[in-house]
């Protein structure tokens, strides 16, 4: 017995998704894609595997350490299994859809594979669903994708959503403007929001970086604190840009809970402007993240990606399916009628002595009796 069960062992971070979760996930993915479509985002489907150079070029460089490689026996070239779909959409926009009208609104859903999971997210195969908005640098584009992320999650039933806006370019710009030498130590201390180490690493600029840390919080207060910093130069431009985006989001989605964290950086390695992460109170980790980056041919782009595993954790469990057992002798036309009405109708293939027990054994909620489905119990 043991040996046959051992063959069911899967590599770390991979799993079988069973009923009813598999169907639930697929339904949620389709509902999200439909919502994106309602906002004008058209679906594309890039392949699972590509040549390494195209997958890891440009913005894709940040995913190199997370990408599985394999050799293509046909072309004798190295290929990579995608660790992120955004890079592929950027490639499509810069090549096959180069002549398509801008701004280009695209959506996608698919699996990605990662070399390593994280402690709170040990899965190595992730289902990603997202959109990319290519060809516009306007603050309206940033605001549109944030509002769309909130709207689409709301449409599938996620409540208590909270979006954290970030400026991944701000700290690198300040480091440059102020001529700070040990940027790596400062970056690490800021990543952990470790005020004591930030003060140590920032030296004479400790007041400024302390104020940046303290500025994080609900959007209205954080925006006031950031504007009061009088940073100057390109850092100030980043902040006024954020202010414009916050204003537009507040108009498009007035109910949305917005926070701002000006020093958040991890996971935004290829971002060049306003970024964001999506949280739900009481749910571990992020539902998704997004932000502004440079797509293939130097085009400004923004977008977001949902991690389906976390989105599903933020949703109530699926409702039990309406499943009816059809004992022997139910006419085929009757079965067709029920299926057309949306029933999952299971036809008996052998007579059963206790019909109700047989229906229960097969996980049915109803049994066909006297010309209609009757609820069990």
């Amino acid at each position: 017995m043991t040996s046959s069960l051992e063959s069911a062992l899967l590599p770390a971070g991979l799993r079988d998704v069973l009923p009813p979760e598999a169907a639930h996930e697929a339904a949620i993915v389709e509902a999200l894609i439909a919502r994106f479509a309602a906002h004008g985002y058209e679906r594309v489907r890039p392949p699972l595997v590509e040549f390494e150079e195209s997958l890891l070029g440009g913005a894709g460089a940040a995913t190199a350490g997370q990408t599985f490689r394999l050799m293509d026996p046909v072309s004798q070239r190295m290929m990579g299994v995608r660790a992120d779909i955004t890079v592929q959409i950027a490639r499509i926009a810069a090549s096959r859809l180069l002549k398509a009208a801008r701004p280009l609104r695209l959506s996608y859903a698919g699996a990605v594979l990662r070399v390593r999971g994280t402690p709170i997210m040990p899965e190595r195969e992730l289902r990603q669903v997202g959109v990319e908005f290519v060809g516009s640098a306007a603050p309206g584009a940033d605001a549109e994708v944030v509002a769309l992320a909130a709207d689409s999650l709301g449409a599938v039933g996620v409540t208590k959503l909270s979006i954290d806006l970030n400026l991944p370019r701000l700290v690198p710009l300040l480091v440059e403007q102020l001529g700070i030498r040990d940027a790596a130590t400062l970056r690490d201390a800021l990543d952990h929001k470790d005020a004591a180490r930030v003060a140590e690493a920032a030296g004479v600029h400790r007041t400024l970086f302390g104020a940046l840390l303290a500025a994080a919080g609900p959007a209205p207060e954080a925006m006031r604190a950031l504007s009061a910093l009088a940073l100057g130069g390109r850092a100030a431009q980043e902040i006024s840009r954020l202010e414009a985006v916050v204003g537009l989001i507040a108009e498009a989605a007035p109910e949305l809970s917005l926070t701002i964290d000006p020093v958040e950086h991890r996971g935004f390695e290829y971002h060049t402007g306003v970024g964001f992460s999506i949280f739900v109170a009481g749910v571990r980790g992020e539902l998704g993240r997004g932000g502004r980056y440079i797509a293939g041919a130097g085009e400004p782009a923004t977008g977001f990606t949902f991690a389906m595993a976390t989105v599903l954790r933020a949703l109530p469990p699926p409702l039990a399916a309406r499943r009816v057992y059809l004992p022997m002798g139910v006419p085929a036309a009757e079965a067709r009628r029920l299926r057309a009405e949306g029933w999952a109708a299971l036809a008996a293939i052998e007579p059963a002595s206790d019909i109700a027990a047989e229906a229960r054994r097969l996980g049915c909620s109803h049994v066909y009796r006297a010309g209609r489905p009757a609820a069990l119990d």
Partner: protein
Amino acid sequence: MTSDGALVLAVPKGRIQKELMPLLAKAGVVPERAFDDPDSRQLQFATNDPGLSLVRVRSFDVASFVAFGAAQLGVAGHDVLLEFDDPEIYAPLDLGIGRCRIMVAEPVELSKTDDPSRWSHVRVATKYPNVARRHFAARGVQAECIKLNGAIELAPRLGLCRRIVDLVSTGRTLAENGLEEVEHIAHVTSRLAVNRSALKTRPREIGAWIERFRQAVDAAAA
């Protein structure tokens, strides 16, 4: 996991808990009586604030509880946070308690002739394999770590390995075991640790607690 409801603060057992009691008092947190009793088998404790309860766990477990959001707040040593290096844990406030340092030590005899700058490989006994590996890698030394959970100072004497990476506060235990500090890795104090997702989704509540502890730390320093 609690979504709205009460916040949970995870605190480590032992020495840090004693140093933490005055800070809790200054922050206006009064735990139920059993919390003060080290013999109590109770694990979770109510406080005078219905919005906050305490759990008492081992120091390394504070990081796990906070990283996974089982506790939204925690008191964790900088040593523990360095070892975990978890992106889900923020450490926004230095509590100024539990002061000590992480260092490399070896037998006094050995250190007379040893030149650490010539090392290419070391074997160390430690509670902190990640910290040790990162420290040695940064200075080009390969480290083989033997993970122990306590009594690290015993390792060189019994021949488990010659060097250790451990915490030291006064240096007495080191001296008693014929060991000497040869390299400093990091200063350690306890931090108020916060779960990232909790800070983002309940910014006002968590922010208010950070502020209460900040004022308590300032009052203790004054």
